[in-house]
Structure formats: C-alpha cells, structure tokens
C-alpha cells in the first residue's frame, strides 16, 4: 500500500465521499448565506433557496463565483468570519486590477497544512526528507503553503525562497536537499544554471521535485527529471481556493488527485456554464467544502482540464484532473479563431528538436492578426543545414494548422535567446490594439 | 363588527311561511314542531360545545327542568303559564349556577362525565319524586298556553306560536354569532390561557354562557310542556342529551345553522321511515361516527365547501 498522509480520507469509498461532500456543501452554503453578504444577496437575486440543494447534482443550480466577484468585494467582502478570527492573509499580485485577498482561520491553516502534506506525501516526500522550497515567500500562497505542509510531515524545510539561482544550487549541494519545490520553469532554469556551472545531477541529492503553479507538459517533466535526476510531480492549487493543496499527482504521474473531501470539482462548458459529464474537457469549477474564512461557491478557475476517475494503483480514490491544458482567459482569438497557447505547446511536444522555450507574439498587419511563434531549437539543429530546418518548419506549420486551424508564423531562434522565468512564465505577448 | 348574514333567517322565515300556508296535516305539523324544539335545543348545545368548547351532556335536564316546573306549577297549582316559564328560568338558572360553578373548572372527559351525571340525577329525580312529578307514568293535565287571550290549542296555532319564538331565537343567534361575544367564546375555546391573558375573565364568561343557555333551554322546555300537555321523564333522559349531541355535531359545530339543520334531518328521517325505527339508534350512532371520522365540521361545512367550490368553478 502506498504511503499516504491521511489514509482513511484519501481512500474513502465513493459513496462515503459523496456523503461527506453533501454534508459539507450544505453546511458551507448555510454559512455563506448567513455570513457573506455577497452570497446572501446573490442567492436572493438568483432566487435560490439553498435548502433546495438536496443532492450534489443540485449544485448546478447555484450561481458561479468569478475572480471579478472577488475583486468587487475587495478586500474582506468575501470573508465569512470577522477579521479577529483570521490568522493569515494572502493575496494575489493584482497586475490586472485590484488584487484578490484570501484569509485563513486557524482551522483553515490546519486543513491547508494537511492537504499540502497529502500531496507532498503522494509526490514521494517523507519525514526523512530535506525540502528545498524555492517558491517565493510572501503574499503568494506557494511558499508558505508548501512550507507548513512539509513541516507537518516532519520533513526538514529549507525556506530558500526564489532568486539567486547559484546560491540555491550551492544550498542544494551543501544542505543535501532531497526535495525541490518550485515552478517547473524555475526547475528548468536551475538545471540550465547547473549545466552552465558544470554541476552534474550527481553532485546534488535531489530525489523528488514538486512543481506547480503554472501549466507544464510531459516534455518539460522529462527534461527536468533527466537533468535533475528527480521524480517530478505536478501539483495544482490557486490562492483563491486555498493555495497549493487542491490537487497533486501521485508517483504514478497520471493525473492530479483532487482533494475531493475538501473541494468539489466540476467541469463546465466555459461559454454556456453548463456542467459537462465526467471525462469531457472544459473549465474547472471548484467549491470549497470546509473553508471557514473564505468559502467559495462554484469558483471558476478558468483552467481548462478534464476530470476522470480511474482505479489509481496508488490506492487513492479521489477523482483526478489532467494537467490543466490552458486557461479560458489565456485564450487568444486570432482572426476569429480561438487559440490556446497550450495548443502550441502540444504541437511542439511532438517534435524532438523543439525545446520547451517559445514565445508567442501577436501583431496587427493591416486588418489581419498575425501570430508569430519564436521557438528555441536545439543547438545542433540551429547550426544545421537550412534544408533540414526548412523541412522541420514545414512539418510544424502543417501540424499547427491541423491543431489550431490557423497558420502561425514560426521562427527558429538561437538557444538561450528567449527569456527565462523564475515565477510564472509569460509566453504570450499580444501587441494588438483593441 | 361583522355584517349580519340574514340569509339563513330569511330561509327559515320562507320555509315556515310555506309550511303555514300549505301544510294542514296535523301529523306533519307536529313533526315540524318537534323539529323546532330540537333545533332550539341542539343550537343551544351547539353554542356551548361549538363556540365555547363546553361539552354539556346534561342539556336534557335543563329542558326537563323547564318542562316540569311549568307542568307542575300550571297543572297542579294552576299558576299562569307565563309565570311558570319565568319561575322555570329562575330555578334553572339557580341549578345551572350550582352545577356550572364547580364543573366548568373541569375540562373534556371530566366535564362530560360531570354534566352527564348531573343529567342522570335530574332524570332519576323526575322518575322517583312521584309525589310531585307523577313518576315514570308522566304528568298529565298541563293546560295550553294562551297568547293575548287566544288559547294556543291546535297544532296549527302552536306551530305559529312556536315559529315566532324560533324566529326570535334564530335572529338572536345570528346577532350572537356576529357579535364580539361569539369571538370571546371562540377565543376561550381556542385557549383559556391566552384569552385570560388578553383580559377575559374566563370562569365568569363560561359560567354566564352556561347559565344563559340553560335558561333558554328551560324556556323551550316550558313551551314543550304546554304543547304536549303531558310530560314524562323519558323525554328528558340521557338518550335525549345524546340525540342533541348527534344533531349538533352532524349539523355542524360552531355555526348557527348546524343545530337547525341537524335537528331537521335527524328528527325527520326516523319519523318518516317508520320501518327503520328499530335501527334508529344504530343510525344515530353511525351518523355521528361518520361525521367525526370523515366530515370534520358537520354537513353545514360540507355544504358550504361544496357551494364555494361550485362558485369558484363558475
């Protein structure tokens, strides 16, 4: 049997789980409708009697909560408890408007700790590990979230925070960090820095990497795993919901187990809001079931994924989500065609010669949109003969057209010319004026 | 203040008018006279049970007290009938007060049993005190009553006389039903605690009602004595009290129409279908049971519902 943090919960039967979810959903609804003016008014507006929510299916009658709602109720409007019960506050960056504020009660922190511990244990971490957290600490939930989870397991935590990659590598070597926690792009960056410094993967002691907070693909995983000598697992979370700890991969690496006893997940059609059956792709919508400070009902994550329940060999019975394959709000409309940057990445994954580093530029040319993709290709190919390059380009163009429905202009660039990101990668630059 | 609803009074008036015009058969007239006596008694019981919630199973006794007082005084001592009615009222009032004062503190089963016991005692006294009541064989020689010099002797004359009394009674009932007094009684029925904390002196109101109703029943009894010229204890037995219960419950408790309707139907049926006489009791019991089990509120209410339904559909 796989090592689990909360074995009883993580392996509960579907029937039992549904009961838990229903109970917690109902009590959450009872609380928010009483204590959160936003929900009180919203339910009244939508003419919803929460006592009519008698089964989990009935959740479809409830209205969504969006990021905009959070911004509109800045700062504490979404809280269900008074500030004196709040023991921690996190917040999003607020680059696109007012930031969103998230509060935690003592009990929320307790819950969070356990949820993170669950996904860390699932990703291979144990009390014997030395966990190197290279997430930035601060308002961002990643650092503290994983920090307390790891501590809770009993691991030794090194709160390195982000930046100064060389020093990070030194710490990894000297302190014998066995688990790396950061974003996938930063993991790659570390790998590259190591290569530049001439440090091989055998010089460090990493066994596991828990990577998250941005979309990444199998290709990146393979690269990280081989270059750092780790088993890399993905984990998913968003600060509005709780931070990291919403879902995470087990060592079988086929989908992220959602901590269903604390979050109810649905997939909806992002355009119509209609709930899609299990297995279909759409926008992930999450409802917190146990959060006290800031419960959210049907929060639209804007992440595109698919839910599936299989018999995971790890023994966990929770439903799984695929790695998010894009965000509804990342969606680009190029000459009327919906394009997700993730689709671009999907195509590149098919080609061995492509590196995970690319950049999408969108420009106006006359009245037409022009999508240009710059892609770093491996060094040897870049200096190879033009003919081979051209053939590759043609193949890629054809695939792109098949997948996206448009023909972007693909441009190969020299290795290491594209900017590297320590936080979330920003791969789209839209230069159009609307 | 609610508006008076005169339709039932008018209906009664028209019915009585037509009866006076077209029915000459003495048998039918006497039947109608019995119906009116029963209607008044049942309505009185209805006020007690239907409005005030006082279950009185001794109403026959008050009826008998009036009848025997008038009968004895007029037949044996030759006192003016009207004077005997008044003496009857006084005696009844005193008896009702003596019985009502302690027993109205009781409720439900206890009250039913107490009033029943009282009825039985009075009945036994009628039977046994043969030195004044002439015992079970009955009191004879009761004179007719006269009205402004006219002796009310024939069935027809008495019918007219009783109709006047009945119309006065029914009109007063309507006034009562729409007055605050009926509200007061209903309130006491609903909850004695609540009504007392709204300033109503519950004991006083209940006792007054009980005594007044006993007096009306007593007048009715006196008239009964002058009508039949002969009274015997059987007419005032426990059985008669129960018949009044059946009439009121079947007709509809808590409405002014209930007593009259119940009395009309339940007096009429056994008389007309003489062959079922043996089954009379079974039928009475059956009707009572069916009313309680299936028609909460009696046929008056059923009828009203039916009308309302019909009107609504229209």
């Amino acid at each position, binding site marked *: 049997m796989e090592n689990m943090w909360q074995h009883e919960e993580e392996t509960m039967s579907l029937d039992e789980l549904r009961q838990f979810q229903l109970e917690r959903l109902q009590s959450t609804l009872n609380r928010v409708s009483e204590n959160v003016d936003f929900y009180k008014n919203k339910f009244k507006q939508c003419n919803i009697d929460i006592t009519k929510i008698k089964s989990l299916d009935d959740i479809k009658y409830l209205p969504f909560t969006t990021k905009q709602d959070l911004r509109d109720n800045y700062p504490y409007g979404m809280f269900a408890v008074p500030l004196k019960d709040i023991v921690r506050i996190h917040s999003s960056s607020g680059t696109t408007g007012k930031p969103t504020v998230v509060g935690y009660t003592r009990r929320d922190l307790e819950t969070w700790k356990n949820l993170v511990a669950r996904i860390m244990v699932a990703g291979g971490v144990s009390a014997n590990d030395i966990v190197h957290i290279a997430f930035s600490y601060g308002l961002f939930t990643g650092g503290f979230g994983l920090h307390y989870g790891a501590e809770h397991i009993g691991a030794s935590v090194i709160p390195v925070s982000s930046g100064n990659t060389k020093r990070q590598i030194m710490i990894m070597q000297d302190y014998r960090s066995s688990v790396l926690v950061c974003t996938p792009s930063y993991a790659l960056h570390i790998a590259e820095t190591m290569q530049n410094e001439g440090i091989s993967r055998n010089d460090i002691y990493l066994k596991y990497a828990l990577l998250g907070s941005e979309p990444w693909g199998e290709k990146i995983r393979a690269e990280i795993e081989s270059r750092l000598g780790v088993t890399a697992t993905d984990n998913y979370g968003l600060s509005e919901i709780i931070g990291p700890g919403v879902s995470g991969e087990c060592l079988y690496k086929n989908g992220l187990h959602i901590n269903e006893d604390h979050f109810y997940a649905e997939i909806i059609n992002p355009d119509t809001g209609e709930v899609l059956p299990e297995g279909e792709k759409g926008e992930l919508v999450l409802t917190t079931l146990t959060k006290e400070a800031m419960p959210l009902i049907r929060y639209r994550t804007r992440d595109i994924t698919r839910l599936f329940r299989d018999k995971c060999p790890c023994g966990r019975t929770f439903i799984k989500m695929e790695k998010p394959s894009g965000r509804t709000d990342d969606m680009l409309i190029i000459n009327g065609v919906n394009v997700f940057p993730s689709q671009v990445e999907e195509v590149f994954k098919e080609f061995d010669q492509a590196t995970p580093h690319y950049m999408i530029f969108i420009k106006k040319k006359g009245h037409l949109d022009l999508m240009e993709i710059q892609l770093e290709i491996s060094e040897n190919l870049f200096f190879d003969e033009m003919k081979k390059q051209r053939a590759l380009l043609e193949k890629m163009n054809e695939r792109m057209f098949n997948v996206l429905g448009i023909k972007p202009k693909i441009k190969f660039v020299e290795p290491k010319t594209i900017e590297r990101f320590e936080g979330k990668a920003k791969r789209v630059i839209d230069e159009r004026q609307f | 203040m609610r508006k008076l609803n005169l339709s039932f009074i008018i209906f009664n008036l028209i019915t009585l008018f037509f009866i006076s015009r077209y029915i000459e058969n003495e048998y039918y007239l006497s039947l109608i006279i019995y119906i009116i006596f029963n209607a008044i008694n049942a309505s009185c019981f209805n006020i007690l049970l239907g409005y005030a919630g006082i279950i009185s199973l001794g109403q026959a006794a008050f009826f008998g007290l009036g009848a025997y007082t008038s009968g004895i005084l007029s037949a044996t001592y030759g006192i003016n009938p009207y004077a005997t009615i008044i003496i009857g009222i006084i005696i009844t009032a005193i008896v009702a007060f003596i019985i009502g004062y302690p027993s109205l503190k009781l409720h439900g089963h206890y009250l039913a049993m107490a009033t029943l016991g009282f009825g039985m005692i009075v009945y036994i006294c009628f039977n046994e005190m043969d030195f004044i009541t002439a015992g079970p064989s009955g009191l004879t020689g009761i004179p007719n009553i006269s009205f402004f010099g006219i002796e009310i002797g024939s069935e027809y004359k008495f019918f007219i006389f009783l109709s006047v009394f009945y119309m006065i009674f029914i009109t007063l009932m309507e006034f009562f039903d729409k007055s*605050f007094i009926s509200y007061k009684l*209903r309130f006491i029925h*609903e909850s004695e605690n609540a009504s007392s904390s*709204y300033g109503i002196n519950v004991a006083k109101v209940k006792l007054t009602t009980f005594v007044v109703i006993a007096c009306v029943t007593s007048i009715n009894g006196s008239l009964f004595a002058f009508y039949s010229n002969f009274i015997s204890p059987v007419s005032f037995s426990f059985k008669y009290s129960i018949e009044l219960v059946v009439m009121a419950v079947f007709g509809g408790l808590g409405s002014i129409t209930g007593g009259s309707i119940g009395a009309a139907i339940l007096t009429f049926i056994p008389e007309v279908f003489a062959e079922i006489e043996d089954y009379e009791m079974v039928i009475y019991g059956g009707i009572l049971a069916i009313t309680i089990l299936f028609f909460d509120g009696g046929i008056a209410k059923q009828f009203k519902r039916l009308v309302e339904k019909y009107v609504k559909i229209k």
Partner: protein
Amino acid sequence: MLRLNNVSVNFGGVKALTDVTFDVPAHKITALIGPNGAGKTTLFNSITGFIPHFTGEIHFHNVKLNGKLPHEIFHIGISRTFQNLNLINELTLRENMFLGVIGKEKPPIFKSFFRLNKGYWKNVEQRIDDMLYLTGIKKWENSKPGSVPYGVLKNLEMARALISNPKILLLDEPAAGLNSKEKENLAELIGMLNTKGHTILMVEHDMSFVSTLSDYVVCLNFGKLIARGTFDEIRNSPDVIKAYLGDEDA
C-alpha cells in the same frame, strides 16, 4: 417599571426559580435568555399570573402583582404572547384582531349585541386598520390563519397584543419557527415599537435576534439569575458562556 424582587417558584420540591431579582426598564427592550429548563417560561408565567404561588414580590409601577389573576394583570397593562399562536382558524386575520380589543375594553354587551353603538365599533375598526398597517399585514386581513405564512401570523399576534395598548409587552419566543427573512421583518417591527416608546420583555433563543434588538439582557440558568447587562457584556460573561457551551472540566 417592572420589578422582580427575590422571586422563587417551587414545583413539588423542585426549585424552578430561585431568588430572581431584576428590573425591566421603561422604553427599553429587555431579553431573557438561558438554556433549556432555565426557568424563563416559569418566570413569564409568574409575572402574568399563571403561577400564583411564587414567593418574593413582583411590582409593576408600584402595583404588587402577587396573587393577581391573569386577566387582572392584563388590565394593569401587561400584555403577553404565547409560544403557540392561539388564533381562531375560522375567523379572518382581521376578525382575530378583535380578540385583542374585547378583553381590554369590555364593550357594552347589550348595545353591541344589537348593534346600537356603531360609532364605537367604527373606532375599533379604525384602530385595527392602523395596527394592521403598522405591522405590515394589511394585505392579508381577509385571509384565514391557515392560508398565510407563519411569519404573518406572528406579526398578527404582535398586532393583537399591541392593540390593547399595553404598558409592557411580554413576548414568549417571538422568533421561534420563523425563517431568516421573517425574523428580519419581525426584528424591524419590534425595533420600531421600541422607538415608539414601548417597553418589551422577551424570552428568545435566537441570539442574533437578541443581539440586534435588546438593550438589556438577563440570563437565567437553573432558575437563578446568572448575568445581566448589555448583550456584549452578557455574551462575554464567563458564566453565560459556561451555561450555554458547558464546562470543559466536566
């Protein structure tokens, strides 16, 4: 205004109330709280004459209430409501309003019976109208109790108690059985009455209701007065918390 002095009640050897002493100040809302079996209803019943055998004294405006009967106490100016509604189902809401008038004013029987005092009853109707408007149930006036929402009936009960113009209003769990919206409405109504100068003493379980309304709170437990003060004071009193949430050392 209403003053209880060492009130104790014994039920066959069980002490239901022990030396309860407090004042109900005029023109304020006082709430009586306490866990189950604390003696709140017993206290109400003692004040309103349903429990005549209490010891100690209850004074209302210097009138001693000991030994008075419920209807006498009502005539002194103390009006109360009950947990159950006590409405007459066959009568409309408007007609039920009369019940608040007839006990208080003792309308002349003969004149009223034969409808000779129309002016008086017109005046009563007018007052009923005002009260129906005030409590916001005018539109239901011709409905019968069985066909209107529970909250309306609660308001009706308030209206019925108010129409007798009591000097003090005793409410027994006014919010019990109401949904949150109806509670809000009722709280608004009671608040308005208070601003109009009514004195109110209420037994209530719903603390949010108590907290929004009451000027003073009196807390009973096991028949004893354990705390009195403003809601915030009461809420933070360790005795009250212990009475409600229990003792962790148990």
